[in-house]
C-alpha cells in the first residue's frame, strides 16, 4: 500500500445553517495512488466541491481523517502542516476570479516561493517562475503582465503553474475546464495529462462533465448528496454501472453522435435533488429512484461489492445495466 498518496476515512463536513446542519460531505472514504487520476462526478450540490476544499485544507472537516502519505492532515499543526500541505495543491474552476487582478503573473506564480522561502533560493526565483511558465506552455517573457491581459485558457494555465510551483505530488482539480470553450478545454486537458506523465502527479479530478472525466480518469467515484454511491475503474462505471443514480446520470449525458438518437437507453429522472440540510432517510437517492422499496427508507445501503455488482456500489438492488 506504499503507493497510496492520499486517503480519507469517514470524512464529514457539516455546515451550520438556520435550517439545521447542511450535510455537504457525509462520510467519504477514498484512496488515491501515485500517478493515478481519480475522477469525482456528481451534480451541483452533491458535495464534490466541498470535498475538494477539505482535501486541500480550505475547510476543516467536522470529523474524519485525511492522510497524505500516511500523515494525518487534520492533526498536523504549524510548520509540519505547512510542509505537508505543499504536497497537495488545487487548480480552481474559475480562471477569472482565481488570479489576483492586482498582481503580475510573475508575482502570482512566484508567491508560493515567497511563502515557502526554503523551496527556491531568492536569486533563482525569477528563473523558476519563467521555467514554470514555459512548462505550462506560456511565453516566459509575459511574467510582467497582468491576468486580465490573458484569455480564459491562458489564465487557467497560470493557475496550473501556480499549483505546480511547490512540486506537489497531488493536484486537486476542481472543475478545471468547465468555464472554458470546447476547443480550449482540449488544450488544458492535454496539458494536465502531459504534466501527469512528466512529473508523476496524482490527480483528484472533480467535474460534472462525464465525458471529460471518462477521458482523463483511471477510476471514478460518483457522489450524490454528500456520499459516494458507486466507485470503480472507469470502464466499470461507464460500461457496467450498477447504482441506479449512476445509470441515470450516464444515460442523461447526450452523446455527440446523431446515429444513436432514440436508440439509447435513456432514463429521465423525476424531480430535483433533495436539500442536503434534510436528506431522505436510508438511501438518499430513493426519492427519485424507480427501484425504491420499503427497505431503502429503513436501511442505508453500504458502499461495497455486492452479489451483482463487481465493484463497490451503495444500492440494495445493485445490478449491472448498460445504458449506452
Amino acid at each position, binding site marked *: 500500500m506504499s503507493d497510496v498518496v492520499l486517503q480519507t476515512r469517514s470524512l464529514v463536513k457539516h455546515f451550520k445553517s438556520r435550517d439545521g446542519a447542511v450535510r455537504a460531505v457525509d462520510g467519504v472514504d477514498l484512496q488515491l495512488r501515485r500517478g493515478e487520476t481519480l475522477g469525482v462526478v456528481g451534480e451541483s450540490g452533491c458535495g464534490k466541491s466541498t470535498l475538494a476544499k477539505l482535501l486541500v485544507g*480550505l475547510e476543516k472537516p467536522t470529523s474524519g481523517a485525511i492522510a497524505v502519505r500516511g500523515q494525518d492532515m487534520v492533526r498536523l499543526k504549524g510548520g509540519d502542516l*505547512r510542509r505537508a*500541505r505543499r504536497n497537495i495543491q488545487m487548480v480552481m474552476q474559475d480562471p477569472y476570479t482565481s488570479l489576483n487582478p492586482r498582481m503580475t503573473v510573475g508575482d502570482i506564480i512566484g508567491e508560493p516561493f515567497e511563502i515557502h522561502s526554503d523551496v527556491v533560493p531568492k536569486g533563482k526565483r525569477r528563473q523558476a517562475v519563467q521555467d514554470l511558465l514555459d512548462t505550462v506552455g506560456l511565453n516566459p517573457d509575459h511574467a510582467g*503582465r497582468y491576468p486580465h491581459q490573458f484569455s480564459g485558457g491562458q489564465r487557467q494555465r497560470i493557475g496550473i503553474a501556480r499549483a505546480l510551483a511547490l512540486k506537489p505530488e497531488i493536484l486537486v482539480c476542481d472543475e478545471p475546464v468547465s468555464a472554458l470553450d470546447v476547443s480550449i478545454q482540449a488544450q488544458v486537458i492535454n496539458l494536465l495529462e502531459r504534466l501527469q506523465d512528466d512529473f508523476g502527479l496524482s490527480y483528484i479530478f472533480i467535474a460534472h462533465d462525464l465525458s471529460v472525466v471518462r477521458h482523463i480518469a483511471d477510476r471514478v467515484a460518483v457522489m450524490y448528496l454528500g456520499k459516494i454511491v458507486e466507485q470503480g475503474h472507469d470502464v466499470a462505471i461507464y460500461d457496467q454501472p450498477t447504482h441506479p443514480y449512476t445509470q441515470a446520470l450516464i444515460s442523461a449525458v447526450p452523446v455527440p453522435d446523431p446515429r444513436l438518437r432514440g436508440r439509447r437507453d435513456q432514463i429521465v429522472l423525476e424531480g430535483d435533488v433533495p436539500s442536503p440540510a434534510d436528506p431522505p432517510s436510508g438511501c438518499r437517492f430513493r426519492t427519485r429512484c424507480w427501484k425504491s422499496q420499503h427497505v431503502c427508507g429503513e436501511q442505508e445501503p453500504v458502499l461495497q461489492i455486492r452479489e451483482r455488482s463487481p465493484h463497490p456500489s451503495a444500492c440494495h438492488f445493485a445490478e449491472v445495466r448498460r445504458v449506452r
Partner: protein
Amino acid sequence: MSDTRSRSLAGDAWTDLRHNKIFWASGVLVALILLMAVVPSLFTSADPAVCTLANQNQGPSSTAWFGYDFQGCDVFARTVYGTRDSLEVGLLSTLLAGVLGLIVGMAAGWFGGVVDAVLSRLTDIMLGVPLLLAAVVFSGRLSSPFEDGVFAVTLTLGLLTWTAAARVMRSAVITAKSQDYVAAARMLGAGPARLVFRHVLPNSIASFIVVITILLGTNIAAEATLSYLGAGLGGDAISWGLQIAEARNYARIAASPLVWPSVFLAVTVLAFIMLGDAIRDAFDPKLR
C-alpha cells in the same frame, strides 16, 4: 493583447484619468485651494483681521475686490484666509474618519462573526444619530465659547463620519475575501498578514478612496454649517460658515459678503466631489 506593455488596473485607471477633463479641472481647483490654505498671502496682501468700520459695507473696489462687510473687513481677504481653517478641519477630520473607517471596516469584514456583529451594530448606532444633531451636542462651542474650536470640530466630525467609509470598506473586504485568489493564497499557506495586505486590501481600497474624497467635501460643508449655527468654529477663527451667518442679516444691503464665501465654499466642495467622481469612473467604468 496586441500591446506588450503590462497594464495594471491602477495603471488603466490612471490612463483613463489622464484623459478625463473633469479630473484635471477638479485637480487644478483642489491644488489652487490647497495653495490658498497654505500661503494665503500669495493671493491677498490685506490683513483679514484689520477691519475699519469706516469701510462698512463698501462695494467692490480695486483694493478690496469683493468689498467690505458689516464690520468693515476686507471680504476677499477674509474669504481667502477662511480657506485655511475650513481645509484644516476638513482634511484632519476626514483623515481621522478615514483611519477609523478603515480599521473598523477591515476588522468587521475580515474577521466576520462576533467582531463583525459588534462593529456593525456600533456602525448602525452611529448612523442612528444624524451627523449634525450629534455634532451640535458635542461640538466645543456649547461649553467653551472662547476657543477657535478647530480641534473640537475636527474631533467631532472625525468621530461621527467614519461610518460610511467603514460600511464601504466592510463590504469591499467581504467581497474580496471570498474571491478564489484569496482561497488560492490561503491554500499555498499564506499567513493572515499576507492575505490581508497583499490580496484583500489592494482589491478593496478603490471604493474606500472614492468615499473618502467625497467625505472631504461634505466635511468641509459640515464645518461651515456648524459654524453657521454657532456650534462650530468661533473665537478668532475665520470660517466661511461664520461669514455667511454674519452677512445674512445684511444681505439686502450688501450681498457680496454673503455671496463670496458661499461661492468659495461651494467651489471647494464641488472640486472634491468631482475629483471623487472622476476617480470612481476610472476605477469602475461600467457605470458611466
